[in-house]
């Protein structure tokens, strides 16, 4: 028991004895965890950002002049039945005049003596889809409905957004993988270097008859402490960064998106840094003792 407590206390003491090495190790661990954490949050939030953008997709469907309100309701229902459509809101002729006045500051009835604006409908699309949202088939189906005169929408912008999302979803796993590999290598090599700088200690322990486990344990504990410290520093900074981004987006842009952080991500970060530190420490000491 005394031996085990000694090995744990040596792990803590080594952190204190080698402050500069610890600082270097913790700093590079922290940097790696910080960027991996942000990447994970970006991955988690990509979909919600896309859903937010999709909520802004809007089709304006103008009905023929002879379409009355009752008929418009039937057409609107037909539009709602199309796959991918979330809502269809009828804009009657009076509403259309009001909207015209709001936008152009002119009363069209007093200019022309009659209301030329047709009944129309504003159509929103369903947001939740993992695949690219194809708008053309929806537009074609709407156009085929009897009584529909014209469909206006931001086709190019929607296509651009959907294509960008598709690209992100295609390359994100690869980018994430590369990022994680870099982080793993940085953590692993930092731990290795910090142990290589104490070759003399390992050599002395070997000469006085320490077993391999006795030599390795303090380094493994030290690695765990470094990983814990790095996670403790990285976690509030990640939360701060995301809160700052949310504040910026809500106060200085028209984006009404709130990025969220999954608490389990911090568990994963702790596990990642802890596991790599332990493996790195263990292997580095083994290499020196070989």
């Amino acid at each position, binding site marked *: 028991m*005394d*031996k085990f407590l*000694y090995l744990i206390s040596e792990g803590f003491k080594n952190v204190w*004895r*080698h402050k500069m090495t610890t600082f270097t190790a913790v700093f590079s661990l922290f940097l790696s965890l910080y960027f991996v954490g942000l990447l994970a949050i970006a991955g988690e939030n990509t979909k919600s950002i896309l859903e937010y953008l999709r909520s802004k997709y809007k089709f304006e469907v103008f009905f023929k002049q002879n379409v009355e309100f009752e008929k418009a309701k039937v057409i609107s229902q037909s539009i709602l039945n199309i796959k991918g459509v979330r809502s269809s809101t009828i804009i009657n002729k009076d509403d259309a005049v009001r909207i015209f006045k709001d936008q152009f500051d002119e009363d069209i009835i007093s200019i022309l003596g009659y209301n030329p604006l047709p009944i129309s409908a504003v159509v929103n699309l369903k947001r939740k889809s993992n695949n690219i949202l194809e708008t053309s088939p929806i537009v074609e189906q709407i156009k085929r409905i009897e009584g529909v005169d014209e469909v206006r929408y931001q086709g190019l912008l929607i296509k651009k957004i959907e294509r960008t999302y598709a690209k992100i979803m295609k390359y994100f796993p690869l980018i994430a993988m590369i990022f994680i590999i870099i982080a793993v290598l940085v953590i692993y090599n930092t731990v290795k270097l910090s142990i290589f700088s104490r070759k*003399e*200690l390992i*050599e*002395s*322990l*070997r*000469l*006085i*008859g*320490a*077993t391999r486990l*006795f030599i390795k344990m303090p380094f493994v504990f030290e690695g765990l402490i470094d990983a814990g410290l790095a996670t403790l520093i990285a976690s509030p900074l990640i939360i701060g960064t995301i809160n700052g981004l949310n504040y910026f987006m809500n106060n200085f842009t028209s984006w009404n998106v709130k990025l969220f952080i999954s608490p389990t991500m911090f568990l994963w970060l702790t596990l990642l840094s802890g596991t790599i530190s332990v493996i790195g420490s263990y292997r580095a000491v083994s290499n020196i003792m070989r």
Partner: protein
Amino acid sequence: MIEFQNVSYTHNKGKGVNNLSFKIEDGDFVFLIGPTGSGKTTLMRLIYFDLLCNSGTVKVDTFNSESMRIKNIPQLRRNIGMVFQDYHLLEDRDVFNNVALPLHVMGYSSQEIPYRVEEALDLVGFEGKRSHYPNELSGGEKQRVTLARAIVKDPDIILADEPTGNLDPVAAFELVQLLETINNNGTTILMASHNYNLIKGRGRRILELKDGSLRGS
């Protein structure tokens, strides 16, 4: 007991030791002399199994190179105290903790360790300075601490590889006297040196190495 039977070892870059045969009985004090590069350190390393011989047999107490397993080497080393020319003290811990290290390795209780460390430091005549770090000590003081670290675990054998190499003549003389005192308590001592003046006239057995071969005993 240390016994070499036709032991040879060659380093990757050549040199080493050739066909060594000798026996050191329990409680002996033996000097190992020879010029630099004659194989003294190689011989020492073969004793504590830092090197494994290419041919022949090395026997140290109950350990035999023919049947030795790697996992048993720490067990052997716990029974050997080592003193080196360049001290091998850990710069990041004080005198007390340097001397206490072998006791932690051997699993002594935290109550017993301070007592044994004090005893070892007293035995080598190291006064005060328990909390000093190696870089705050003179060469002679460092070597006393190294010796204290070697004897604190009460080993059967002490291997001293050029322990006086960095010491002034007075400190070197005192160190050999200390080793003799320890030997009087029954510890086997093998001390390598190329300073013949220091060891002559002491009435001890001398092994002479030249070019890796034993020239005289």
